[in-house]
């Protein structure tokens, strides 16, 4: 019997992670106990503005940092016209209909709204975008890196001490500690970077370095190298809104520094708390379904559409590279 395993890999992003924005959390409290949180949180800690609490960005930056009109999907193919503005969703996301569409955005890139790629890097970005399904680390539940973790459509919690500020992000157990005191750097490059903070008046300024080159900025294929260096600024605009700005430098990829900026909003629901989003279990079918003994997800039958999935497994030495996420 010939082996059915052939040479390359196709996976279909049916994972709920691709939808992102439609996940809604509605937690109802039926107990008679009143929430006590707001009174316990002082406006200042250690003489500095208190950023503690649960926050979330409310924009489309995770789809694409740059300004764009709404799109049929993140992966598209030519329609009946040769125009770029008349493409149609490609097979991996077709069954999601409008839930797989990309909403329009005013963009969060400051200045002229352009990301100053070097020419060869811009080609890489376009290649990334075309290979979104295979390459976006978000779809594998990998760490989102900074700044992406700050504007994914999921809440995160800031716990502000006097020498450390800890940020725990709901997505995939992502976390980082901002060191306000002196610490040694990390032993190796990291997905989330090494964050060192100091105060500039009432603004928290964070210097982030020691990145690896694995994370993306968004679902549009915007990427960086291990030379990435960020300068973040957090300023309270009001008790429930943070102005978040980042200066992004990466001399291997960009011709000059560029900036993004956006508000972050406090999740003011009573008794708000982070829930788990341990998605690595959810993406096992996406990532490893091809090496199951029997194919599990094969066929879906709707009333107007049937979807058939063919799995492919990369051969031999390519096998390892695909899971490493860098091709």
């Amino acid at each position: 019997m010939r082996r059915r395993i052939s040479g390359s890999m196709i996976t279909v992003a049916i994972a709920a992670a691709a939808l992102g924005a439609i996940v809604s959390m509605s937690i109802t409290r039926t107990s008679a106990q009143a929430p006590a949180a707001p009174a316990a949180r002082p406006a200042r800690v250690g003489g500095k503005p208190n950023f503690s609490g649960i926050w979330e960005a409310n924009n489309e930056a995770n789809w694409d940092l740059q300004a764009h009109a709404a799109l049929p999907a993140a992966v598209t193919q030519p329609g009946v016209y040769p125009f770029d503005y008349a493409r149609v969703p490609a097979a991996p996301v077709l069954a999601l209909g409008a839930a797989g569409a990309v909403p329009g955005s005013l963009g969060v890139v400051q200045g002229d709204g352009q990301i100053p790629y070097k020419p060869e890097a811009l080609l890489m970005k376009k290649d990334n975008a075309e290979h979104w399904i295979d390459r976006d680390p978000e779809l594998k539940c990998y760490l989102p890196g900074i700044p992406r973790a700050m504007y994914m459509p999921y809440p995160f919690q800031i716990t502000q001490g006097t020498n450390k500020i800890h940020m725990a992000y709901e997505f995939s157990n992502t976390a980082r500690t901002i060191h306000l005191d002196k610490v040694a750097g990390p032993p190796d490059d990291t997905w989330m970077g090494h964050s060192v903070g100091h105060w500039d008046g009432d603004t928290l300024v964070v210097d982030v370095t020691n990145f690896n080159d694995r994370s993306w900025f968004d679902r549009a294929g915007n990427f960086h190298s291990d030379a990435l260096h960020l300068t973040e600024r957090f300023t309270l605009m009001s008790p429930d809104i943070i102005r978040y700005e980042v200066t992004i430098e990466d001399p291997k990829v960009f011709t000059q520094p560029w900036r993004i900026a956006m508000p972050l909003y406090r999740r003011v629901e009573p008794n708000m708390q982070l829930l788990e989003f341990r998605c690595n279990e959810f993406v096992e079918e996406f990532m490893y379904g091809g090496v199951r003994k029997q194919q599990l997800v094969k066929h879906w039958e709707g009333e107007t559409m049937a979807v058939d999935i063919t799995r492919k497994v990369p051969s031999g030495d390519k096998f390892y590279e695909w899971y490493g996420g860098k091709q």
Partner: protein
Amino acid sequence: MPDRFSRSMITLAIAATAAGAIISVSITRTSAQTQTASATAHTASAKSSATATALKTPWGEPDLQGIWTDESDTPLQRSPKYANQEFFTEAQRTELDKERAALLGRDRRVERGTELDVAGAYNAQFMSVKHTGARTSLIVDPPNGRIPPLTPEAQKISAAEREFRLALLQATQTCKNKSVGCAGGKYDPTPSPRFAEPPPRYNTARMNRRDNPEDGALPDRCLTGGLPEFGGATGSFRRIVQTPGGIAMFYDVGQGQGWQRNIVMNGSPHLPANIRQWYGDSRGHWEGNTLVIDVTNFSPKTDYQGSRENLHLLERWTRTGPNTLEYVVTVEDPTVWTRPWTVKQEFTKQSDDENRIYYEPRCIEGNYASPGLMHGQRMAEAAFAKGQGPDPRISDNATDFVGVEDDPLQ
């Protein structure tokens, strides 16, 4: 290339923990020993209120902040021969350290080309062996330092899991040789028809099948890390950061299993019963100088010594000195154990400056082995189907280390 390695420590891997089971250490002693009331080296009992008051955050809460780990090795359960002796004597500790250190110098590899040699995995520097701790067990209640008996229901479930795993081993050399890994099982040259069955419950432990990712043990799938967390050979660290009315804990355990605990401190009730989580739901409040955390809502996909969704923990965290923190947890699950049991552990503060926590404890981004394991099985199955290799089901891909090394202290 210049020599980059200085002659500092020689440390070796102690890796029997890989099987996921706890192997109690049984130390043979030749001299009679007297029970001592307490170990002089034990500092966790120092509850000087003056010290405790001084260790407060600027806003007046007890300060639990820092990176904390247990700097010594203590078995979870007390060896029966110590009966109700809670602490080792100094002499016992010294002797234990000597014996364990002597093991570090041993040099054993089995015959090349055998599965057992493959199972030995890699050089032994990847794990950490610490000094023997003051206590004879982490468990302080019941007084014999051992986990209470299982309920009849739990015994049945445990037996069903064991039978299933033994069935998958029945055609292997492990069972043919009546090796320890097949204890309670039998040999049959024909692979069991149970290879086609799902396991009795959601699988969390090793089994001799690799048809699907779900056949992997939780560590294979980077799904470990959870509560209660008592330590392991690759380290167990928790970083605590506090803010008025809030506390965050980030754990670095196992092989890159990093996870967050967001302790809810606002007095609200636990999550509704339909929300189950891997790490449970932690609700905390202060009782004097102690942080008390109640954890419920565990997922049926977790497993701690057989306890799953009915696990309930009550933790007590107390800063006992400038560099020490006492952690006490009562573990209960009336469907599994006939009574609750309590662990006491002392953590020592680690230097923040040296970045003692592995900076980014992550597992999934580098888990090339999980698909590799399945891919290997698919290749073996394909070869067998073509008559070019043995039936993969007669090879034991579940047991490791058993048989590679005989524990000289047992």
